[in-house]
């Protein structure tokens, strides 16, 4: 009978799509635990985001809304979430494994003296005990854990759960941010490269490696990404090309870069080193284009084309653009 809390992420008044994935996981767990799903959102001016949450299938929404929370504060938000999760009788607390989720949920678990598993790709509830499966050792193994201490806090790898189908109109209760000093607080958010789809949230990631030979040739990768239409695809890179200075570090996929798990990952001129695989092997569908038929990337790819990127990619870009146009 334990309830499930989903911690919402709201940025610039917008509810993050990954929160709706967490709602899906929450509803799955609630069915097994026999409890309800309570969403908790922190911020300032949350009405729009909470209206969306209320219609996402959750049973109740708590909005901790006030000017003190206009900017993210890890310690402040954690105190609020812990207080309301406790009041909600949470057996499990879920949040997306985003920059905010990985910063916030470990604090919440500490304040509640619970357990925590991060970057989960599956969650479970068996006979009242919560658990999760998560990649470890850079994706070279998968660890399944069971909670020994409640509440079980878990962050979910983006793109691993479908977005909640929606439904219902849950009641929204408002609460004020807790009193007390904020120890750390965001004072500014500097948008990088405006208009780009964040790598971890993109539906499609087109990544290029050293096989592209020079920085200028990344135009091929950008064109292919653009062919999917606005806001769909993001450009990724291997460490080799980031180290060479062809691409910024924020585009690096892999163990020392970002972990992405999109529905579609296209690797162009990337050999598939273990450290690169660590960042993309849980993508739903992987496509590899490489001129070397023995490149290790083909071992994890669902579909491969052996060939020269300079010939294959323009043809693929054209073909994708055709498909998108006729959709």
């Amino acid at each position: 009978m334990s309830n499930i809390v989903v911690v919402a992420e709201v940025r610039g008044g917008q509810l993050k799509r990954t929160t709706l994935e967490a709602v899906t996981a929450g509803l799955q767990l609630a069915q097994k635990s026999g409890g309800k799903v309570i969403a908790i959102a922190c911020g300032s001016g949350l009405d729009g985001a909470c209206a969306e949450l209320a219609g996402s299938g959750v049973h109740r929404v708590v909005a901790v809304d006030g000017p003190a929370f206009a900017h993210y504060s890890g310690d402040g938000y954690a105190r609020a979430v812990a207080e309301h999760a406790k009041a909600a009788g949470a057996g499990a607390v879920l949040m997306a494994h985003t920059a905010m989720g990985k910063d916030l949920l470990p604090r919440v678990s500490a304040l509640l003296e619970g357990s925590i598993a991060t970057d989960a790709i599956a969650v479970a509830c068996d006979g009242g005990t919560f658990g999760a499966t998560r990649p470890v050792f850079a994706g070279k193994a998968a660890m399944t854990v069971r909670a020994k201490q409640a509440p079980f806090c878990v962050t979910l790898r983006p793109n691993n759960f479908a977005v909640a189908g929606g439904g219902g109109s849950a009641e929204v209760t408002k609460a004020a941010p807790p009193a007390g000093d904020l120890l750390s607080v965001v004072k500014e958010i500097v948008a990088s490269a405006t208009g780009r789809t964040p790598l971890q949230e993109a539906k499609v990631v087109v990544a290029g490696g050293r096989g592209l030979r020079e920085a200028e040739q990344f135009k091929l990768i950008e064109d292919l990404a653009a062919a999917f239409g606005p806001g769909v695809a993001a450009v990724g890179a291997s460490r080799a090309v980031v180290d060479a200075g062809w691409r910024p570090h924020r585009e690096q996929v892999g163990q020392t870069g970002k972990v992405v798990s999109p529905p579609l990952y296209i690797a162009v001129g990337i050999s598939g080193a273990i450290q690169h695989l660590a960042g993309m092997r849980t993508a739903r569908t992987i496509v590899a284009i490489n001129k070397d038929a023995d490149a290790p990337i083909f071992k994890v790819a669902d579909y491969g084309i052996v060939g020269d990127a300079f010939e294959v990619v323009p043809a693929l870009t054209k073909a994708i653009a055709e498909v998108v146009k006729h959709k």
Partner: protein
Amino acid sequence: MDIVVCIKRVPATDTAIKIAADGKSIDPAGVTFELNAYDEFALEQALRLKEQLGQGSVTVVTIGSKDAQKELRDALARGADKAVLLTTDQWVFDGASTAAALAAWIRTVPCQLVLCGRQAVDADNNQLPANLAARLGFACVTEVAKLTLEGGAFTAERDIEGAREVLTCRTPAVISCQKGLNEPRYANLKGIMAAKKKPLEEAAAQLPTPALEVVSLALPPQRAAGRILGNGAEAVPALIAALRDEAKVL
């Protein structure tokens, strides 16, 4: 400023992983271990802060096996003043109990700043620093890629999805370090010699029962065998068909 740097000895990133017979841990045979790469950024930042302030101390601490003496010695050789090994013969994978044990130890020493790596690349938890901060009641910023200290307060920058956050952070604080923060120095001969005379203390770690139990450790879910669709641009129509009709991603 008295700085504590938390480090962990982890399998080298290019090591092959074999699952042990118990199905819950790795078989350490043939695995090379090394200092967790992100902890090198933490140590470097501590040394730079001490240099900037011209006073204070840098203590490295780890919860791990006796083998971790090697990584602690390396940290001393790079410039840390003191090392502490909180011993256990278990693999510590559980963030909650590890944070509890570290917090218990940190409360016994002078400390205004704890520096950590963003993630230990064995369990890939990325959770200890924030967990620890909440237990200590310290301020905290995670995955910091730029850090400045002025007038007793930190300004830290971290990457979030599609943007960069600039935060202010008081002391005492826990800060976790991301790649890009600095270029770690290596130990030179003089440092290695000096390290031999620096203190390396050992005590048993006060680890509570883990809050999580490992049910299984297994090879990653196998991906269904892939297909080479052909050579060159001629294979593009087959790829489009597969993506649309089979994978249903178009």
